[in-house]
């Protein structure tokens, strides 16, 4: 039959691969460049940082940028700002990734279950609503109060704060997918609910999950910085952008560079993630395909 012979060849040649589609967008290229820059900085921190980020040098404190081999100046203990920004990338990105894994992993699971099983939906969704009704940072500060300030606490606290958002978005995506006729067709084949949920529904809600992951990542970087700035985040012994900002607050009039460079690092990371996330969302949206 000629229908069978022609069809696949015609349609495959017409559709560019997803990656080509994705990287044809300026925002995605710019975003991935900024993200790659930050990731490389974090991975290579030990080799590219000119100084030990924690080495004190009281004689050289509060040096302005460009002076005596300190490209971005020094802080109130004479620590090199550039080295601390570079090492701060490790902290921020590691914590960001951990928060994304936690929030998206558990959020997706809860979203799938609440969207698919009416019986647990009522209870779990109200719990999610309850978590969302707390201001995120206040909840995180309260948790730190109970568990003590550490990287783990930051991950848990922000993970719990962002998890309901993921759950809610996945739930609404599942509500759409579960009404589609291939889901019914699958039940008509005798498949169990569990099988249909993980084999058919989950892959079909992957695109909102991936998009959410990039945005949660940028929220997480901001959230970690905010918590560290407030002194309830990463312990001060560990260089992090939020910690650096917190210390810079006292010296903002004397040493603007202490605040500017970690601030810029945060901005570049969040900008990169958001540009990438926007482009990803557009590329994954079937309505915008071919544009």
């Amino acid at each position, binding site marked *: 039959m000629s229908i*069978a012979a022609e069809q*696949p060849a015609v349609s495959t040649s017409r559709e560019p691969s997803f990656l080509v589609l994705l990287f044809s967008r300026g925002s995605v290229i710019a975003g991935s460049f900024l993200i790659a820059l930050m990731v490389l900085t974090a991975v290579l921190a030990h080799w590219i940082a000119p100084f030990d980020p924690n080495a004190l040098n009281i004689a050289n404190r509060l040096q302005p940028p460009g002076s005596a081999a300190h490209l971005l100046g020094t802080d109130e203990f004479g620590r090199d700002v550039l080295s601390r920004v570079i090492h701060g990338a490790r902290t921020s990105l590691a914590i960001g990734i951990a928060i994304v894994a936690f929030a998206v992993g558990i959020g997706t699971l809860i979203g799938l279950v609440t969207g698919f099983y*009416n019986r647990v939906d009522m209870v779990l969704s109200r719990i999610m609503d309850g978590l969302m009704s707390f201001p995120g940072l206040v909840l995180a500060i309260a948790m730190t109060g109970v568990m003590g300030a550490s990287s783990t606490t930051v991950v848990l606290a922000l993970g719990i704060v962002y998890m309901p958002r993921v759950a809610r978005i996945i739930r609404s995506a599942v509500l759409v997918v579960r009404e589609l*006729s291939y889901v019914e067709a699958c039940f008509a*084949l005798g*498949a169990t609910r569990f099988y249909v949920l993980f084999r058919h529904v989950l*892959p*079909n809600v992957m695109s909102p999950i991936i998009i959410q992951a990039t945005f949660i990542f940028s929220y997480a970087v901001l959230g970690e910085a905010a918590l560290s700035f407030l002194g309830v985040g990463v312990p001060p012994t560990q260089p992090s952008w939020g910690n650096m900002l917190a210390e810079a607050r006292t010296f903002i009039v004397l040493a603007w560079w202490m605040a500017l460079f970690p601030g810029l690092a945060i901005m570049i990371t969040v900008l990169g993630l958001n540009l990438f996330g926007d482009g990803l969302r557009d590329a994954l949206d079937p309505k915008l395909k071919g544009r």
Partner: protein
Amino acid sequence: MSVAGETSPPMLAIRDLQLGFRSHRGDVQALAGVSIEVGEREIVGIVGESGCGKSITALSVMGLLPEGTTRVMGGSIEFRGDDLLTLPPRERRQMRGRDIAMVFQEPMTSLNPIMPIGDQIAEPIRLHLGLKGAAVTEHALDVLDKVGIPRSRNILPDYPHQLSGGMRQRVMIAIALACNPSLIIADEPTTALDVTIQGQILDLMVEARDTFGTSILFITHDLGVVAEICDRVVVMYAGKVVETGRTDEVLSSPRHPYTQGLMRSLPSLDTRQERLETIPGSVPALFDMPRGCRFRPRCSYADDGCRRDPPVEVIGGQKVKCWKARQISGVHHA
């Protein structure tokens, strides 16, 4: 043609099925005592307008009624002697796809868009036949061959959007036939297809019956399709069966005023008509059913006597639920 013999028990017997929808106006009756029988190797058509209960009848046989909003209020569905309505859910699930399979209306949306069709055909094979590895692929290729898809090994890694509508419906039928079920329920499988493809799919279904002995319950609103493939036809109106009989008899001499109306509203190529005839009025809402005969408000023969529940009249091989059936038939033959 094989019509259910009077002696052999039917494969599927829906008896006096009553089904309610829960709504904010209270429970409404969607099916008011529907009885349908399907014999071995028989193709039975259910015809009726949207909302007359044909799809919901099919779903209740499958056990796929939406939870919480629908309730079976009476009757039984017997399949090879077992009452499906009293079977435990687990056994019912195992029957789906293995003993009773379903083909849906929309071949565009009835396949998972992001899963290669080879994997989708493999699902019922793995699930019910317990095959693994290469045996699954072999079986899938066999089934695809049977539904007339050549070069099928090349088609296995394809995604549904790479296939035409007709090909997709063939794949759907392949999936339904995969475990060699005794009964296939086809819910308007040709409605979304071109007329030429429609013919091929209908031929395929008749072929499935002839080669595998599969019975088919065919749901449609297209009397042309019924004429083409069905041995018997069941006409439904507003949640009730109004007429049943052999297809040639019902279509050549319809006894129920509603069936007659349906026949008259078909366009004809022989006579040039300015306007098609229609049945006046519209289907009554479920919560506002007229007493007695439900077709009464739209029926030109109706009188006060029709306010009582109509009896089932047997005229020749046809069963007609109408007070006026004999009178109309007389008129019809004159």
